[in-house]
């Protein structure tokens, strides 16, 4: 924690005005703190405030030492005294807010941290603490702008990123709860439940909820795609193909749906049916490598080996993924062998074997 205290001069001046001897305590306390001797610093500063209880700066410095001594409750008491004596004392609001936050009293911390923010708007840690305090107070919506501000200043700070994730999660849960409370039978409510199951690895439950959502509104293209992905992942390619067909009924030009439908048809061994979808996919403006690969596979199935080689070569050029490249080399070897190009067959088999050896190097 960094708290800037530029109060020593004022403190010395204040003490001198009282005509007492606590200055020596304060100087020794400061020196002990800087040397890491917190117990000694605490004793000196306690002696200082005992000798001169009306000096806010001495309480502030004692609060700082108490906080660093992992005694936030005592720190908060000392800091409250400092603020009572001098409400505009620089640094006191920030330190008190942080001490209360450390004590697990975020609601009490919020006004002090807000005051600290007004006092020092460029301090990103105050935003971070405010975000944490608002989140702890059950106000994720109020936490979000502070955490985004903190992230803007320190994009990789782990605590800020953690708090942001938690904030979004709470906001999502809250919105979902509101959705379920106010429109439990709506398609969007079912969709939210389905996506939650889906993201948490519960495919059976996700499919059931997607089914309810689609029963309410069959134009939910994303839901059809999700159903297709889930069914395909379970090996139910026929059901997956049906779902992708439904998605295409709503969004006929959806390139992703077209490719997925074609891949499902291929998985069912229906290369002839997949072919028009794949040929359409590779004539689009931006062609994903998977489309060339799938088309190559379809041509292999249909015994059109020369065309298969052309598409697989395009797929090979377009991907740097070693797993995919290994597969494509293997398929190219098969296609090359079929057209009598034994040189290419050997070359692709060698490339395949080298990649396979690399990718399975951990196996005994």
């Amino acid at each position, binding site marked *: 924690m960094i708290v800037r205290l530029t109060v020593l001069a004022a403190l010395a001046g204040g003490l001198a005005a009282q005509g007492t001897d606590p200055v020596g305590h304060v100087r020794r306390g400061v020196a002990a703190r800087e040397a890491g001797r917190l117990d000694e610093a605490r004793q000196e500063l306690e002696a200082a405030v005992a000798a001169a209880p009306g000096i806010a700066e001495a309480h502030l410095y004692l609060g700082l030492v108490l906080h660093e001594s992992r005694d936030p409750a005592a720190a908060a008491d000392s800091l409250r005294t400092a603020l009572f004596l001098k409400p505009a004392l620089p640094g006191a609001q920030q330190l008190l807010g942080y001490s209360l936050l450390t004590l697990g009293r975020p609601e009490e911390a919020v006004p002090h941290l807000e005051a600290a923010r007004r006092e020092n708007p460029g301090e990103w840690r105050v935003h971070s603490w405010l975000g944490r305090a608002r989140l702890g107070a059950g106000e994720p919506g109020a936490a979000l702008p502070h955490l985004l501000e903190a992230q803007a200043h320190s994009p990789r700070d782990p605590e800020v990123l953690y708090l942001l994730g938690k904030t979004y999660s709470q906001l999502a849960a809250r919105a979902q709860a509101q959705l379920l409370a106010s429109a439990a039978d709506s398609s969007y409510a079912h969709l939210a439940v389905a996506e939650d199951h889906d993201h948490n690895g519960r495919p059976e439950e996700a499919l059931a909820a997607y089914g309810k959502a689609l029963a309410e509104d069959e134009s939910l293209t994303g839901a059809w795609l999700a159903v297709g992905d889930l069914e395909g992942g379970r090996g139910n390619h026929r059901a997956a193909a049906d779902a992708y067909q439904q998605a295409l009924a709503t969004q006929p030009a959806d390139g992703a749906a077209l490719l997925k439908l074609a891949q499902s048809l291929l998985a069912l*061994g229906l290369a002839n049916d997949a072919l028009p979808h794949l040929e359409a996919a590779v004539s689009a403006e931006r062609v994903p490598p998977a489309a060339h690969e799938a088309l190559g596979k379809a041509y292999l199935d249909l015994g059109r080996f020369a065309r298969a080689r052309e598409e697989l070569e395009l797929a090979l050029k377009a991907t740097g993924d070693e797993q995919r490249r290994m597969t494509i080399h293997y398929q190219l070897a*098969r296609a090359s062998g079929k057209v009598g190009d034994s040189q290419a067959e050997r070359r692709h088999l060698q490339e395949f074997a080298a990649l396979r050896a690399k990718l399975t190097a951990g*196996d005994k």
Partner: protein
Amino acid sequence: MDWSPLTQRARVAACLGSLAWAALGTATEVRFEDRALESGITFRHHANPTPEKHLVETMGGGVALLDYDGDGFLDVFFINGGALVESEGRLQVDRSRPHLQDRLYRNLDGKSFEDVTERLGISAAGKAIYGMGAATGDYDNDGHADLLVTGYGGTILYRNLQGRAFEDRTDEAGARVDGWSASAGFFDADLDGDLDLFVTRYLDWNLQTSRTCGEAVPVYCSPRAYPAATSVLLRNNGDGTFSNLSTDWGIGASRGKALGVAFNDADDDGWPDVFVANDSTAQQLFFNLGGAGFEDRALAVGLAYNEDGGSFAGMGADFEDYDNDGRPDVVATALAKELYPLFRNEGDGSFAYVTRQSGLGEITARLSGWSVKLADFDHDGWKDLFAAQSHVLDNVERMEPGLAYLQPPLIALNRAARFIDASPSAGEPFETTVAGRGAAFGDLDNDGDIDIVAGVLNARPMVLYSNASETGGHWLQLRLTGRSGPRDGQGASVSLESERTGRQVRYATTSGGYLSASDPRVHFGLGQDSIALRISVRWPSGTIQQLEDVAARQVLHVEEPGS
């Protein structure tokens, strides 16, 4: 042989698609009934699983069908596991108690069985071998089926003494195979007239190097955690002994994690080739170099990996012609999400991965298989597929919800080279979830159809009787007796042609599947055809024997002509 008419028929069938099957054969809904309880078979497999989860505990459960006493009825031999116990500071295999030992049941009348294990001396009592599977074949050509038992810790070669007893000839015959042996098979590798032995070995693993895998939940280790091993080829010297020619014949040049083995003549050159199913490593196809050894050409011919160049957990295997084009194809079983790979023999020296196109991909996406067989279970002239099933991990549900450890067996009927899942209508056994492993196939009650005995890990087996002889099409079985070649006819290739069902080819072998040995008789379904117009037997000696106008619904004894 001229296969062209058959090729044309297969092509037409493929063009017609799955709806055309009815015109090409007789459609039936074959059903099976599990009669284990009333059969007198009291065997229960014991793997004795431990909390340490030694991999060997989840891999066993083989079965063999053999007519050891020559009475015309198939008898049943079950291979037990054993117990792993601490003794003298080491983990060792215990087979001392009867419930840990192998069991042989004599088939009395096709329906009832009696335990003849002790009388015949075939229990493996006291052997330090954790049992896996068995192979059958008449290695001494005396007319009686002999038996090889595989397992962790060694093999046992039993010589059949005229059906009256079995004699352990392992050491005298030089048939001991160390390490962890899995599936095995007899075949005449060098066509010298007697049966040689191919023994797969799974891993370079032993009880002392065994370990538990998994972090939060202990699981059986993946084979990737252990080094690969080499399979073994034992050449029959013709005098009751064998010589290990694995190195000389090239088998030892290629390592794998072998579990299944099947034989057939892939390139139609008259020499038997060997397909080996490997778990998580490349599959192997040992091409027979005309009796001068073998060479693994699986990668070159497209059999080593799936269509994406990925390995799979090859377990059981079969090597038969599924699409009736006259060329032997290869099917294997694998784990859930891997699909059961089916490779079609293209006839040009290559194999094509046709799992998706055949319908097997859709059927097997979530299944995990072990023993597998391509045979005409419904007598329509097309070879169907049976698989014994279960995941390898007994707690897979905790690892991956949606997958299941216990699974019912699968029967997929072949409709013009496209498979459909017929399990839902095939009877109660196909709704019963078990830890299926080995399975052997043969006509237990001699009614003409193919029955199944399926080994179940840590449980009683399934003894599945088929009703195809009553509800299905016509059938024909051939019992082969060789003269120049192996006496039990193994290695003969039989082609049968009938009017409507067309031409079919079968290879005479007891091998295939997983850890199991099946009926040596060659079975055909004939659909509506009551007569086989032509039967051609190509014996291992090269002799071709032709038969014409053979009536269906009989077991025809065919002897190889000549001296």
